[in-house]
């Protein structure tokens, strides 16, 4: 049982980079410590270089528990691109705040190793390990500003809810193992298929418990409570990581368990997740309306986004391969489309926050006059999050609606109805920010916005990507649609 090193090359590269970063950080001192950032970036680029050749290949190793196919490649690329973006917005932020740079980048890279594993994992055990690999560094990163009460509070909330949900999930896994005798996803699917139409409630309960573990990760209502507090307390790049990459990892895991392992019981979990979707997007948007703190606003908005991404899950049906296919494609597309603007929004936040500590909506007053580029970028990102042109966010919403229309049943239209209502509500607060930036005067004596070259470039790249993908959504959709994702899953 030889190990296919090509298949795990990206993970290996990131691991090596993480170790190198840790070592280099020991060696360097003072301002030179910040060089670990480009180092990590190079590692990420190399990892991308090892990931791209995997496109079009179906590989599997570790006894079939680790699978690399196009679906996994797409998600890995999303992770690596977001890693690059997060590195971009982290550089100045951490270089100037002078705490634990090496550790931060190490933790970040480790967390991403977990993420890279997630879409490839085809065993509950590997999924669990991957999840923990994502989470545990996250707990630490959330509390990285260790002299900050908010940061430690963020960490402890994140940690407690995290371990609780993992405990629940593990309990579910143990029960599932008891019922099926296997932890392999396809094995579980086979076993479940034999239960027919009347499974014991305990089996369904364990199924739901497993889903809950990922529900925490994607911050679905009611497992979302940690998210706003943690985002608000964490360093902003960490919040970006949690909102984007960590959430994507959660979705990757959720896709794996639901569409592969629990596919025969789609009639149980699909409506459950559909209802969660409704609650998640509605609550996220409604509470976001009231936020004054930009990070919290983005946090709630990302809760709401998770709700949108959950909609396709609500459409799934066992045995209906085309519908499930469309659903997975929609979710993956949405994730891809959501990554760029969301990191970008946090990036602008970093730019404004840098040196001034500004983070409330009022602090964005007159940004259009103070720093037109950043205001323009933020506008683009917010429009994309809302789903308005000229941004890729429009296609994200399009994809969800397409999946809904594809399913075409009543519940699908109910979900779409809530999607529409929520899109409107969401724009209400996105536009509020836009309004504050462009149509209000800056307060007297405001600090200037000095994003620095690095951050500006990253932001520009993200704006460019957001708009480019609007013009040519095929760049993603062709990738997501060309491969048979569901078939590729198993």
């Amino acid at each position, binding site marked *: 049982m030889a190990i296919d090193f090509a298949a795990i090359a990206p993970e290996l590269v990131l691991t090596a980079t993480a170790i190198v970063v840790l070592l280099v950080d020991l060696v360097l001192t003072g301002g030179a410590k910040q060089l670990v950032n480009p180092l990590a970036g190079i590692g990420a680029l190399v990892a991308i270089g090892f990931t791209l050749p995997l496109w079009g290949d179906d590989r599997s190793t570790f006894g079939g528990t680790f699978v690399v196919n196009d679906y996994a490649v797409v998600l890995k690329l999303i992770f690596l691109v977001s890693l690059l973006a997060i590195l971009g917005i982290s550089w100045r932020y951490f270089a100037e705040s002078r705490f634990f740079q090496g550790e931060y980048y190490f933790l970040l890279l480790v967390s991403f190793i977990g993420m890279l594993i997630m879409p490839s994992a085809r065993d*509950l*055990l590997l999924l*669990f*390990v991957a999840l*923990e690999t994502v989470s*545990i560094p996250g*707990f*630490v990163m959330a*509390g990285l500003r*260790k*002299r*900050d*009460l*908010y940061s*430690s*509070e*963020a*960490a*402890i*909330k994140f*940690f*407690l809810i995290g*371990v*609780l949900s*993992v*405990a629940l999930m*593990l*309990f579910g*896994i*143990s*029960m599932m*193992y*008891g019922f099926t*005798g*296997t*932890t392999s996803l396809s094995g579980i699917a086979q076993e479940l298929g034999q239960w027919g139409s009347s499974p014991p409630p305990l089996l369904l309960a364990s199924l739901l418990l497993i889903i809950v573990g990922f529900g925490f990760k994607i911050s679905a209502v009611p497992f979302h409570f940690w998210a*706003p*507090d943690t985002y*608000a*307390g964490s360093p902003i790049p960490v919040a970006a990581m949690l909102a984007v990459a960590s959430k994507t990892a959660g979705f990757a895991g959720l896709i794996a368990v639901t569409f592969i392992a629990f596919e025969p019981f789609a009639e149980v979990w699909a409506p459950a997740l559909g209802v969660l979707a409704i609650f998640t997007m509605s609550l996220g948007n409604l509470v976001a309306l*009231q936020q004054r703190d930009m990070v919290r606003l983005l946090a709630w908005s990302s809760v709401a986004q998770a709700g949108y991404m959950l909609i396709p899950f609500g459409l799934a049906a066992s045995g209906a391969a085309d519908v499930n296919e469309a659903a997975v494609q929609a979710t993956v597309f949405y994730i891809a489309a959501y990554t760029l603007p969301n990191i970008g929004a946090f990036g602008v936040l970093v730019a404004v926050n840098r040196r001034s500590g500004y983070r409330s909506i009022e602090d964005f007053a007159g940004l259009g006059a103070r720093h037109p580029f950043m205001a323009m970028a933020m506008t683009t990102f917010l429009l994309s999050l809302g789903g308005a042109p000229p941004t890729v966010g429009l296609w994200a919403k399009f994809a969800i609606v397409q999946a809904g229309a594809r399913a075409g049943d009543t519940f699908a239209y109910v979900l779409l109805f809530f999607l529409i209502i929520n899109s409107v509500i969401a724009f209400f607060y996105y536009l509020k920010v836009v309004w504050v930036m462009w149509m209000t005067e800056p307060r007297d004596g405001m600090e200037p916005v000095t994003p620095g070259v690095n951050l500006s470039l990253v932001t520009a790249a993200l704006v460019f990507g957001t708009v480019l993908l609007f013009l040519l959504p095929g760049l993603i959709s062709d990738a997501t649609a060309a491969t048979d994702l569901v078939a590729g899953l198993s």
Partner: protein
Amino acid sequence: MTLIGPLVLAAFLFCVGLYGVMARRNAVLVLMSVELMLNAVNINLVAFQNLKWQDDPVATGQVFALFVVVVAAAEVGVGLAIVFNMFRNRASINIDDADLMRW
């Protein structure tokens, strides 16, 4: 040995842990309650392996339990660090006090 004994024990342990997480205010005790829950999971896994799925060649349940133990250790390590940091910051490990951020 029947399966029922270990399962009831595990369920009991899990509920105790859950209660601890919900009700204890001391962060360390909350951490320990989490450990209880994880151990309940371990009991489950091992019990199912040995009493129901004995012919599993790779002994999935036991292997899984090992992983859980390791991860739990890591979690507790991180958790204690976080609690410690919190104590340093506000001289309290009462998790009720951690409500700076809300709404």
